[in-house]
Each structure stands twice: as C-alpha cells, then as structure tokens.
C-alpha cells in the first residue's frame, strides 16, 4: 500500500509541529504577559485550599460586611465569610467550568462536524438543526436548561456547552469539506481505506489547529457565561463558590460593598482577557492567512 507521509505523523508530532514557530515569525511581549497572568491565576486558584486563611463556607455572624483589614484581606461578605478565601476558591470552579465546557463542546462538535462534512446525506439535516440552535440566544437556552435540570455543576456545564456546539460543528464541517477534495483524501478513498480510517487519520488532523483556537475562545466565553448564569439566578448553587455566584450574591450589597463584585470581576476579566489574547496568538501562528487579514 502507498504510504502518505502526511498521515503517518503521530498526534504528538502534529501537536508539536503546530506550535513550532515558522521561520521569521516572532511572538510579541503581549502574549507572554498574558500567559504569565493566566499561569498565576490558574496556580493560585488550583492551590487555593492550601493557603486561604478561612474556610470559604464558614459563616461568622460577628464579622459581617467587614472592610478589608489584616485579619480579612478583602473584607467579608454579608454572612461574615472571608471574601479573599471565597474569591480564590471560587476561581477553581469557574476555571473547571471553562475547561470542561471547552472540552465537551469541542469533542461533541468534532464528532458531529466530521459526520456532517463527510456524509452528504446527513449534512443538510445536521446543518439545519445547527442553524436553528444558533438562532436561540445562548443565555436563554442555558438558563432554561439549568432551570429544568437543576443547579448542579454538571448541568451548568451542559447548559453552557449546548449553545457552543453549533459553532464547533460549522468550523469542523468547513475544514472537512475543503480537506476531502485534497488529492491525498481522494487517493485514500480510491485505495479503499475504510471510512473511519479516512475520517480519523486523514481528515481529523486538519481540524486540530482551528479547534485549539476555537477551544480557547469557548473556554473564555464559558467562564463569562457561568458568571452571567449565576447573576441571573440560574448558576451553580451557592454552596460551591464560583466567581459568578460571589458576584451574584454581592449585587444586593453593591452600594455598601462594591468589592464583592469588583474583586471576582477583576480576576475573571483578567483571566478571560489572557485566554482570548492567547487564542488570538495561537490563531495567528496556526493560520498565516488570518494573520495577514488582521494585520
């Protein structure tokens, strides 16, 4: 059987190949700062239980709505819980939701997109369904899903994932549609390769680069949507602190204690800013055509 060097690379080789800089390309200082901020926020959130001074759930009636002090670094909330401990612990769940939603929507979207791109018969039906899903505002669909399925972590991730899937499907489908016209795919079909083999070995590697970029954007928007869901009262239940539900609880006390919205809001915005900037950088590196267009 004829060997195609393109298809023989392992997934690891494909990945490392993606992120090796093309000759002459350089990464500015911006992405480096973004990466540093993101690493700091992720580490600080993941390791929060090791260093936060208080139990983020422990209420203290003697210390309600305290201003920032040496005892309470960022003050306390209306239940006397330490804001610093809550914000740092809350980051873990917010980030988990971001990564979880990105992984699930990319995986499901990849599968549906491959099928839609490769099988003509399924294509028009799948794409009409995706068009319809995209017509429903993401936030409305998400709160409806949470309201019907209950405010658990899993149901919030699913609620955020469902509206993102059509975007992934469209992306994967468009990549597959152009890749399947390539001579090496036609050759593989002519040589009688099995359908799964063509899909996985020849078509899937093409989708990797755009999916990585899309995945980072989904991760950022999932963190944002989690916050909005909590704000609207359809988020993760408040026994699990997240940046979103800390802000949601703080809204009643906004005029006396803006810090309850400000600090989680700041960390969340920094985090999303960093992820988006890294996504842009990855896109420029992975797709030179986009680079030219965006300048």
């Amino acid at each position, binding site marked *: 059987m004829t060997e195609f060097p393109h298809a023989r690379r392992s997934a690891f080789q494909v990945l490392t190949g993606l992120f090796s800089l093309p000759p002459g390309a350089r990464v500015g200082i911006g992405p480096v700062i973004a990466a540093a901020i993101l690493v700091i926020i992720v580490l600080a959130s993941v390791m929060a239980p090791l260093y936060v001074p208080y139990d983020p759930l422990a209420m203290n009636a003697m210390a309600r709505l305290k201003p920032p002090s040496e005892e309470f670094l960022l003050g306390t909330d209306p239940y006397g819980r330490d804001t610093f401990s809550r914000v740092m612990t809350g980051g873990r769940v917010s980030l988990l939701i971001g990564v979880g939603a990105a992984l699930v929507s990319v995986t499901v979207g990849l599968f549906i997109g491959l099928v839609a791109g490769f099988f003509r018969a399924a294509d028009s039906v799948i794409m009409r369904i995706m068009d319809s899903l995209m017509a429903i505002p993401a936030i409305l669909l998400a709160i*409806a899903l949470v309201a019907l399925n209950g405010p658990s972590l899993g149901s919030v991730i699913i609620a955020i994932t469902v509206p993102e899937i059509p975007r992934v499907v469209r992306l994967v489908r468009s990549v597959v549609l152009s890749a399947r016209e390539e001579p090496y795919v036609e050759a593989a079909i002519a040589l009688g390769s099995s359908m799964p083999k063509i899909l996985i070995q020849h078509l899937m590697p093409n989708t990797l680069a755009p999916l990585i970029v899309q995945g980072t954007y989904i991760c950022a928007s999932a963190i944002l949507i989690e916050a909005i869901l909590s704000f609207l009262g*359809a988020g993760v239940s408040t026994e699990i602190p997240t940046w979103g539900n800390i802000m949601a609880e703080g809204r009643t006390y906004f005029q006396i204690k803006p810090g309850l919205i400000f600090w989680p809001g700041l960390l969340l915005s920094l985090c999303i*800013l960093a992820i988006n900037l890294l996504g842009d950088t990855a896109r420029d590196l992975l797709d030179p055509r986009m680079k030219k267009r965006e300048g």
Partner: protein
Amino acid sequence: MFVYILKRVLATIPVMLIVAIFVFLLLRLTPGDPAAILAGDAATPAQLDRIRERLGLNDPLLTQFFTWMGQLARGDLGVSLLSNTSVAGMVADRLGPTINIALMTIVISVALAVPMGVIAAWRHRTWVDFLVMSFSVLGFSVPVFVIGYILIQIFAIELRWVPVQGYKDPSEGFGAFFSRAILPSLTLATIYIALIARMTRASMLEVLGEDYIRTARAKGVRENVVLFRHALRNAAVPILTIIGTGFALLISGVVVTESVFNIPGIGRLTVDAILARDYPVIQAMILLTAGIYVFVNLLVDVSYSLFDPRIRY
C-alpha cells in the same frame, strides 16, 4: 431580487420549525416528570394534575405538538401558568422598553464602532489602532453586568448625573427617558462596539491595500472620501454580517442589562418566567427571540446589494 427574497424567506421556515420542535421537546425530554419539574418539590398531587391538564401533558406527544402548533398558527401563544393571563398580552406590555433600549444601543454602537474601526485601520499600527483594539478585546472580557455596575458607580452614584435604575417611557418626556436609558444602552453597546469595531478594522485593512484605493489617492481624492466612500462601501458586507450575527449577543445582553437596571422589558419577563418555570412563557419567548434573530439576519442578507452593487440576485 424578488425571487431571491422569496427564497430567503422560505428558507427561514425550516429553521423556525426546528426551533419550535426543539423548544417543545426541551421540557418533554428533560429527565423526570415534566409536571413535577414545573411545579417544584413542594407540589401536591392536585397541583401536578392541574399542570398536566393545563399543558395537555396527558395527551400523546404528537397530539400535544400539533395542538400547540395549531394555537401558534392562530397567533395564540398560550396562557401563563403563574398569572393566568395570555402570554401574547404579557409580551405586548413589555415590548416597548426593550425595543427602545435596543434601538438606542444599535444607534450608539454603529455610530461609534464603525468610525473607530475605520480610523484604527487607517492609522494601522499606531497608538490609535492599539487603543481601539485594546478596547475591543476588553469589551469581550468583562461581563455585561460588571460593566453596568461600573457605569452606575461612576455616573449615577459618584457624579449623580443620572438615576441609578428604573425606566420611563419616551411619552413621559424625552429627558426622563434618555437619562434612564443611556446607561443600559451604553452597557449593552460595549460588547457590540467591540465586535463591530474589530470587524470594521479587519475588513478595512483588507480593502485599503487594493489598487483602486491607491488610484483614488493618486488622483487627489480627499482622504475622508477615500476612507468612507471608496473603502468603507467595499468593506461593508462583513461588517453588516457581524451586525446581524451579533444581534444574538444583543438579545442575550438585554436579558442581563434589564436585570441590572431594573427595566420592565421582555428580557426580565423571560428570566422571571424561566426561573419560575412558567413553561408557556418560556416557549413563547425562546420562539420570539429566535424569530427576531432570524428576521434581522434576513434583513442583513437582503441589504447586501444596497451597499455592494456587485451583489445581484
């Protein structure tokens, strides 16, 4: 042209039909007894029966669907489980504030974002470009409600220029309306401006490298005419597209903004209905918002030829 419009209108029918099927199945396919989900944990068997009766949940699935579609075709959106009033009436009562705020947002966004994008592309790789791009990245990264609270803090609490919350209809005086609508509109506009400015810049950058731009400059056309008449018209199609697809963001944003500013619009109506699991209202609102989105994008598609005469149908 007419045939094209007709085809586009017909193409929206399957999309809306699938949205309707999806909304219909959303409740019925949720694990558990639909009536129990809607009524909550503390419901008595009698209450459950009443809900089943009201929504026709005892009928076979297909019968339920066709009954509902039949009502929709007659313009009957159903009756709210909570207030017992017609959903169509509730929506009509709440539509005004939302439309006014949305229109104001679109005007502000387009008026600011398009010039921002044009200037950023014109002064590519200068501090102006950097500033516009920074704003547009920031606009995507800060939650809508945080922007709302920051604006309230600055303009309503510190400077006391406008009231903190609330809504007044334009019929009660334009000043009263404007002072209450400006902060929600700006809040909502932030992400829309970010989106449109970014697309305008990218699209303009592409066009500004074309030969006819060089020709126009060489024959001495004034720079603002080059930018806004020669370049912007050719860059218009992607900008229009993003205004259309960005409309989904606007609808989602309305929901949040109305909660922050306490505006009695359809966004608030929808959130309240979803949280109270008032299913007839939820169905109607998702269908309505999806319909608005599809309609706006239909308008955008049709308007391409106005901006770019090369596009003929």
